[in-house]
């Protein structure tokens, strides 16, 4: 369902993503690991058009963008409407309450009537366990709560794939699990997910596929049992020994 071919992205003269091919089947969970600066965030940001690749093809749910040609703003927005993004620092809208954060896209982008949007929003808040907090402002929440609201905000747009960029890295250790649990539930419901994370235990439990990135290329990828316990490439072994 997601097809990436020859993806390439440079900043100035520095090539950060080098000719990446990857297929992601519906309902699968892909975890991306790799050293700092290897291009994991950039790759994820290319998938929802926050960075515009210099070259390559991204195909999501029947929408194909060929970056060797000029892509239009409308194509980029179509791409974004198929993907949900969860940021490391939550990035909730601080001037809106929890429920307003979640229905903002439904009202402004999808033009749903407010009553309907609130219904959807409340259902999602219940799912992430924060219905009781719907009228709080983000500044009144803990980091873990904020990140769960951020996940609900992305889900509200009904994306085909959820992208997570180190969703638990900014959290205090005791708050990590409440976010991982929400993500696990999502995986069990069959949501397609691409996750950049350093949570190896979570990756091993939840991922169908682990992708090891280094210097903008995929060094190797495969099921977690293979990548974590039986990596083929020297660089993968070295990286895993460093983080364990």
């Amino acid at each position: 369902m997601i097809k990436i071919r020859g993806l390439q992205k440079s900043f100035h003269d520095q090539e950060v993503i080098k000719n990446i091919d990857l297929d992601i089947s519906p309902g699968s969970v892909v975890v991306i690991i790799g050293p700092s600066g290897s291009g994991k965030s950039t790759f994820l940001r290319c998938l929802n058009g926050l960075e515009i690749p210099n070259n390559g093809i991204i195909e999501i749910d029947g929408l194909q963008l060929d970056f060797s040609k000029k892509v239009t703003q409308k194509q980029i927005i179509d791409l974004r409407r198929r993907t949900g993004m969860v940021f490391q620092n939550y990035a909730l809208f601080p001037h809106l309450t929890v429920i307003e954060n979640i229905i903002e896209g439904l009202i402004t982008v999808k033009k749903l009537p407010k009553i309907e949007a609130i219904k959807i929003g409340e259902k999602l808040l219940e799912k992430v366990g924060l219905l009781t907090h719907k009228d709080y402002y983000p500044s009144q929440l803990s980091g873990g709560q904020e990140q769960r609201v951020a996940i609900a905000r992305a889900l509200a747009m009904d994306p085909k794939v959820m992208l997570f960029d180190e969703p638990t890295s900014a959290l205090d250790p005791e708050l990590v699990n409440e976010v991982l649990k929400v993500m696990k539930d999502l995986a069990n419901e069959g949501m397609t997910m691409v996750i950049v994370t350093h949570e190896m235990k979570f990756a091993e439990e939840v991922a169908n596929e682990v992708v090891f990135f280094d210097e903008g290329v995929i060094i190797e990828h495969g099921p977690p049992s293979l990548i974590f316990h039986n990596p083929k490439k020297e660089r993968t072994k070295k990286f895993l020994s460093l983080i364990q």
Partner: protein
Amino acid sequence: MYLNSIFHNPERLERLINIASSSFVPLLEGAITYTLPLTVITFTIGLVIAFFTALARIFGNRFLRGIAQGYVSIIRGTPLLVQLFIIFYGLPTVGLTISPFPSAIIGFSLNVGAYASEIIRAAILSIPKVQWEAAYSIGMTRSQAIRRIILPQATRVAIPPLSNSFIGLIKDTSLASLILVTEMFRRAQEIAATNYEFLFVYSIAAFIYWVICFIFSIIQGKIEGRLDRFVKTVGGVR
């Protein structure tokens, strides 16, 4: 010394009380009919100019950016008094005569527009990049992101410095006296010119300015108190 001479001279004391009571009303009238309207009208027009100037400088193409930048540079780089003189005394020599009050409106509005545009621009630029990205990530266009996400946050950032500008403007309107607008300070000058009590009459004018500014600074405090809980988290400060 001054006070001493007054209190040991009953005649002089009586004269000053007479002047105070006869000048207070015209001064207050000047404040209500000219100083305040001039402030409120020019601040409103100025904000509209400032808003579009800020948008042009941040989001405009090269042409719009150039115009906006030139405007801000000229207004900020020249004295307000000189600007007022050009409009009121200068333009008639090329056949464009504008009466005092409209001249003042034009001059002050242009002035507020330039300075407030810098405040609004800084407020918009202070909103962290990830707020834009979060807006884009839920499928918003740039104009939706500006309208729904960036401007509401920027407004909260801009309100404290803008209310300072407003209070500054109240006092700056006294410059309009020099282009013959009969606002409060012009009246003070006229009254003092007849009775030569410059210190006394100008002090009454100063007192009225102070009371007006004091009232507005209380209102300012109330507004900022209300915004407080948002401002804490706006601008990426956590």
